[in-house]
């Protein structure tokens, strides 16, 4: 039921441009290299998109309210180091992962409080947290990576469900939950409302401060989930992990058609945006394109994707009028 409606919305709705982009990209790579459209490679691409894909969920929530969260890359490192440190001290895997997730939520909530109670612009509050969390991660770990973890943790990266890699299962499950929260719950409606017109939402009697704080806590949580994936994948918790992830996450959200001004967009678009970025990186690797040219290509695709999306949307709006 939901699946069919989602499918119809993707075809007809605001994700049309990005979905088309992803399809064109995949077809071009399928023609260009025999190594792209293999089951093993596609499974790799999905797995590789999980890292940024997970952070991009929280980022979508934040950007929908008209905010921004620059601290997520550092929170990945902080949560990762908390998990690694706890495991090193003999904590069970569930306890260590719980502590990591808690660290992410707490730091995210602090972001939210600085923005709502302290009235700091989100850019400034999270920029500060970016540095604080990075420093905290370095302090907690003495600047050294922590490595060598028990198998139950590694399963998050190496396991699979019916042949689908565990990180991909987790990614899809999280996107499904996020989709439900945004489209089927009151909190979801409020998030769009805050981004659309914050003052009107306040006047309508919504506790905007609370909901915005929750949104930043969700962003911290998704960064922490990413940390779990990353620690499991590398079998190592690194205080310098996640540098630049915030920009990848913002790019995924924007490619996915969510407006940086807030109020419009969707997590489905973000998922497609994250997929576009990893398909592109994967394709460029397979084609043996020079590392320098790859950066140019990724930047160009971000710009072209948003251009097409904006153009399509303008046309849709015109046809509605």
């Amino acid at each position, binding site marked *: 039921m939901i699946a069919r409606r989602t499918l119809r919305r993707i075809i007809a709705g605001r994700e049309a441009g990005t979905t088309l982009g992803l399809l064109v990209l995949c077809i071009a790579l399928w023609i*260009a290299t*025999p190594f792209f459209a293999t089951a093993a*490679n596609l499974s790799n691409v999905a797995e*590789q998109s999980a890292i940024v894909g997970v952070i991009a969920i929280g980022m979508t929530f934040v950007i929908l309210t008209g905010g921004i969260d620059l601290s997520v890359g550092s929170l990945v490192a902080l949560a990762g180091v908390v998990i690694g440190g706890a495991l090193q001290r003999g904590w069970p895997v569930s306890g260590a992962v719980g502590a990591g997730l808690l660290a992410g939520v707490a730091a995210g909530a602090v972001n939210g409080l600085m923005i709502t109670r302290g009235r700091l612009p989100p850019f400034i509050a999270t920029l500060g947290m970016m540095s604080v969390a990075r420093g905290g991660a370095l302090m907690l770990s003495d600047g050294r990576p922590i490595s*060598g973890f028990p198998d139950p943790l590694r399963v998050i990266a190496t396991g699979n469900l019916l042949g689908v890699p565990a990180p991909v299962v987790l990614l899809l499950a999280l996107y499904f939950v996020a989709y439900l929260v945004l489209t089927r719950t009151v909190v979801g409606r409020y998030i769009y409302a805050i981004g659309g017109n914050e003052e009107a939402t306040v006047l309508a009697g919504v506790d905007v401060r609370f909901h915005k704080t929750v949104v930043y806590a969700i962003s911290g949580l998704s960064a922490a989930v990413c940390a779990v994936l990353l620690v499991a994948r590398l079998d190592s918790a690194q205080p*310098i992990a996640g*540098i630049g992830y915030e920009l990848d996450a913002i790019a995924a959200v924007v490619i996915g058609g969510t407006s940086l001004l807030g109020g419009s967009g969707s997590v489905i678009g973000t998922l497609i945006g994250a997929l576009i970025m990893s398909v592109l990186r*994967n394709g460029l690797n397979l084609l043996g394109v020079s*590392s320098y040219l790859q950066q140019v290509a990724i930047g160009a695709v971000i710009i072209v994707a948003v251009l097409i999306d904006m153009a399509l949307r303008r046309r849709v709006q015109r046809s509605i009028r």
Partner: protein
Amino acid sequence: MPTIRRVVPALCVALLAAACNRGGDASAKPTVALVVKTLNNQFFIDMEAGAKAAADSLGLELVVQAPEREIDVERQMQIVENLIQRKVKVLLLVPNGSKEIVPAVLKANAAGIPVVAVDTRIDAATLAAAGATVASFIGSDNEDGGRMAGAFLVEKLGGNALVAVLEGVPGHETADARLRGFRTALASAPGMKIVASQPANMERDQAFNVTQNILQSNPGITALFACNDVMALGALAAIAAAKRTGSITVVGFDAQDDARKAIAQHRMGATIAQNPREMGRMAVITASRLIRGERVPAEQPVAISLVR
């Protein structure tokens, strides 16, 4: 909507052109991949040049890839995974994380692709624990190089100096080994005191800032050791900005062209020559031997020397 009418066909044409231009994959030459730490360090560009020359003469197709940042282990792992899908015959790898890259090595092993570690070792204990194997290691003894750098400073300053150190990425094997060697050399000279030792992550701009800060807190230093030339050059710039050129002996590592120039102009004390070109050449030769099914030595040392 004129914009969309222009953008979409343009994109299609561009993609089609890219799709038609698939010559590289269709060629019959066996493909060898060289994955380095980053391509914004002259050291790896030299390694690439050495590898390319060898690949051309041996009739091999060489693919060189690297993450954008030297500290990005995860992106390097993605590159390795993607190259495994491309079915390269041999993987020549300069790991960004000696332990962290092991899961990727395991995947290459599972796909039947031999892995050769170049320049930086892959952690033996982690490899053993994961059941992964490396066909060969080609590189210099970084600890030995660090000792050479330390011995040079001890001799040059008569065993008496306040010393600053620019460390590499914390916990990364190459820079750690150089540091170990350097500290060992200084331990034999009690007059040499390390008063500041700070990481600058192998990057020039960070080295500039860290050195500036060290010069504020420890104006009395007369010697500085940087774990690579990129940082040494950053430190030289900071020292010049503080108008102290000549009063501090800077020793780097890698013997890049810019560092050699600085030494010739007496702005820099010394550097350790590692010969990345030779590493690249030997790596590709090793790859071709592996493709032919020959045995290769587990350790292939590349000579190291002091440039002053």
